[in-house]
């Protein structure tokens, strides 16, 4: 640890404390070290100072001071990101939104909410529950991750299959730009008012275009009926094929998730034990929403397909407590892997849903050859796979093998017509692999867009876009081997 970077002066620190209060500034090395990584543990760095504003105005004032102090800024929500997007950078401050957690407005009639960026995902849904509404995207870390962080990574979650990722739900943003000025993009009623749509580029920009401080999102009416189905398979391959068939038949559940045996074991050993049976090689967790008849019909179809592909047992429940337990197990699956090894590499790739089985076996082979422990848990519905590789970061060779396997999995997905990230972002983890998908010209265009917002590389520099040119990385876009049978989005 211990950075040799630029030290922030006492005067600037005092100024920051004046703006956000003493408790909002953490400057001593021990306190700062807790921010040395997000949930992507492979790369760590030290921030010069941690600043935690409470309002947009405080954030804007703090940004001006940091700018004057010659630091760059990494925006951070709860630090639950899995690709290093919120990791500190050299000569950088962290500006965190953890104290910006007020739900500013819930408008039940027009079905939108305006929140501060640090509001935790589940707290937003809780805040609009009385109005019979909910917020669509439900990342697995939703009990901790923030709406601002969701905007940065264009987060999805199991129900992304039906509701889409964050970009389909954001109506407006308030952000602080690199001059410390507050700008508004969109708003509750801004759809189609003739302006250039700048929300698009900002959602998913991983904190490189500014600091999002307030977010206006649309809310959805709670479905009349929700049923959760559990289908048990003797083989992971059969389970994957069943999903491909469901998609081909155009069944529309709201979520289709797959957990393999190692994942099931880890979850069942944890406080989140969901009652997944221990005799299954793979579990498919499906949720169906809608009116009574619609739910019954879809559930019956899902079960029929599962049975046809060898499911040896299926269960259905509409009981809220049981549904909650089943989902808690799924959503705690990453954390539960801590029981297997101290560190976890969570890959996040997207494959066409007709080729799930192929990618899963590519991942299995890559890990077996490198003597690595692989657990699979994924949003099968939208083709977003999360092969989880357990490792111990104190073992340098194991770390190397993990990264190698991760890259092979990414290559396989890209070659199959998929993409590098479903919802966790590029961050630091997949920067080099951007060259698998994009040419130098593509990346240059992205960099120009970034520079239009942030000419001086003040926001989260060195993330997402490859730092070195692709020629230097010796990678070219991979030819797509077979035409994608369908759009993976």
């Amino acid at each position, binding site marked *: 640890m211990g950075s040799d970077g630029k030290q922030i002066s006492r005067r600037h620190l005092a100024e920051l404390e004046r703006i956000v209060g003493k408790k909002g500034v953490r400057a001593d090395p021990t306190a700062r*070290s807790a921010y040395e990584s997000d949930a992507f543990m492979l790369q760590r760095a030290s921030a010069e100072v941690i600043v935690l504003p409470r309002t947009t105005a405080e954030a804007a004032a703090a940004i001006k001071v940091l700018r004057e102090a010659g630091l760059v800024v990494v925006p951070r929500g709860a630090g639950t990101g899995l690709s290093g997007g919120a990791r500190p950078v050299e000569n950088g401050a962290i500006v965190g939104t*953890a104290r910006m957690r007020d739900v500013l407005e819930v408008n039940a009639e027009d079905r939108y909410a305006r929140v501060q960026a640090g509001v935790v995902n589940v707290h937003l849904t809780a805040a609009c529950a009385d109005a019979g509404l909910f917020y669509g995207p439900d990342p697995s870390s939703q009990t901790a991750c923030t709406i601002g962080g969701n905007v940065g990574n264009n987060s999805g979650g199991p129900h992304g299959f039906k509701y889409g990722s964050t970009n389909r739900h954001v109506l407006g943003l308030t952000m602080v730009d690199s001059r410390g000025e507050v700008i508004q993009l969109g708003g509750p009623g801004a759809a189609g008012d003739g302006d250039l749509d700048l929300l698009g580029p900002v959602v998913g920009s991983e904190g490189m275009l500014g600091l999002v401080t307030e977010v206006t999102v649309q809310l959805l009416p709670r479905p009349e009926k929700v049923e959760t189905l559990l289908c048990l398979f003797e083989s992971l391959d059969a389970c994957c094929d069943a999903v491909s068939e469901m998609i081909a038949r155009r069944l529309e559940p709201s979520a289709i998730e797959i957990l393999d045996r190692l994942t099931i074991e880890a979850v069942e050993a944890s406080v989140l034990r969901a009652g997944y049976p221990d005799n299954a090689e793979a579990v498919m967790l499906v949720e169906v929403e809608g009116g009574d008849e619609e739910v019954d019909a879809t559930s019956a179809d899902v079960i029929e397909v599962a049975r046809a592909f060898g499911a040896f047992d299926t269960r259905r429940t509409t009981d809220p407590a049981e549904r909650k337990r089943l989902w808690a197990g799924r959503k705690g699956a990453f*954390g539960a892997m801590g*029981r297997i090894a101290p560190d976890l590499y969570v890959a996040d790739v997207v494959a066409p849903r007709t080729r799930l089985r192929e990618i899963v076996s590519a991942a299995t082979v890559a890990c077996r050859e490198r003597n690595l422990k692989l657990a699979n848990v994924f949003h099968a519905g939208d083709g977003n796979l999360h092969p989880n590789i357990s490792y111990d970061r104190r073992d340098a060779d194991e770390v190397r093998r993990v990264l190698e396997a991760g890259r092979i999995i990414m290559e396989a997905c890209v070659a199959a017509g998929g993409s590098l990230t479903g919802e966790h972002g590029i961050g630091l983890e997949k920067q080099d692999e951007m060259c698998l998908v994009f040419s130098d010209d593509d990346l240059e265009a992205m960099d120009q867009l970034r520079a239009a917002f942030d000419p001086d590389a003040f926001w989260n520099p060195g993330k997402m876009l490859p730092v070195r040119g692709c020629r230097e990385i010796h990678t070219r876009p991979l030819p797509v081997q077979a035409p994608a049978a369908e759009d993976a989005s």
Partner: protein
Amino acid sequence: MTRESLVDHARALDCIHCGLCLTTCPTYQLTGSETSSPRGRIHLMRAVAEGRAEPDATFEDEMNFCLVCRHCESVCPAGVEFGAMMEFSRGALLERRPPGPLARLARWVGFRGILVRRAGLRLAAVGLRAVQLLRLDAITSPLLGLRGQIFRNLPRVPSARERRPLPPVTEAEGPARGTVLVLDGCVMPELFGRVNRAMADVLAATGREVRSVPKHVCCGALHAHNGELDQAEDLARLTIAQFNEVDDSAPVVIDSAGCGAHMKEYGRLLANDPEWRDRASAFAARVVDLTEELAAPEATARLQERLGDGHGIDGPVTWDDPCHLCHGQGVREQPRHLLDLVPGLERVEMPGADSCCGSAGIYTVLRPEDSLEVLDPKLESLESTGARTLVTANPGCHQQWQIGVGKTGKGVEVLHLAEVLERALKPR
């Protein structure tokens, strides 16, 4: 697992930094600082254990800022035993960064002079009562500055009549269901003697013969939570021996969640003592919280016959989970179930009932300002329920709520679950 290492390193390694614990943590809620979150603290423990950081003042402050409510354990998918890690960290800190002379004296008086001796506890109670009756606290508090807050936040000591310990035996009523041992406790008889008596009466009403252990004083929970591990081990051995002397197989029923959670972990505490390890595990397995004992079907059946609506409790009641009951022992449903058994009692759920009230053992004394800041959102939560009675099952929480309710002036009554049940018992 060695006491010498700053943390139980292997356990720290279970944490994969996923961050799901953050929102449960009262100090993260208060500050928004990840350094003050369970994940942040584990990071610090690990950094110190691996020699990447020094156990400096910031480290010490973060360890002491933690309330050890163990809410994070209830949501940790990796099963990190955070409470145990914090006890080890605090223990090691005492060795690595000994407190100053005044603090050392205070700790000695508190942990060795008062808590473990009945005479010391009585003297402290009498002294405090005298101070309170003579209103000396009004004079000394301003002189002591922030520390003076301690006096204002100390509980009102009841009269000498109230402070009598449990009788050695309380006879079973009706058909006998065997014997249980109960813990009188250290501060319980001095401050909440009525709760202990209510516990004994209710247990007797379910057909239990109730035996106390007059020799026994302290289970050592407060010592362990504050890093005084050697003494905690001694007290655990003493407790086991004294209880077993009275009865070596009867269930041990506890009405103080903090003590119960700790006594259930005697096996872990004495794991490195080959002579005591097995005895400790066997003893720990006999420990049950009062609500677990009463929610057992045979006890519930007996209670149902005896509970009536003459309890005089008007208006809605709400249950506040003591952290060391719900997070420490996983007991959540039983107390609610028991309250629902009482005829004419309207129970409402309090949002965030399972988050910490800021009491946390002697935290109220060590960090009075933080303690009250943690309580503030709970008070708002209580008000939102409209409850007229708040029910809990731990002396620290009981006292903290009395302070909080007293501040708001809303006149909500704070009761131990045993008191509610006792009030509802119909005369035989």
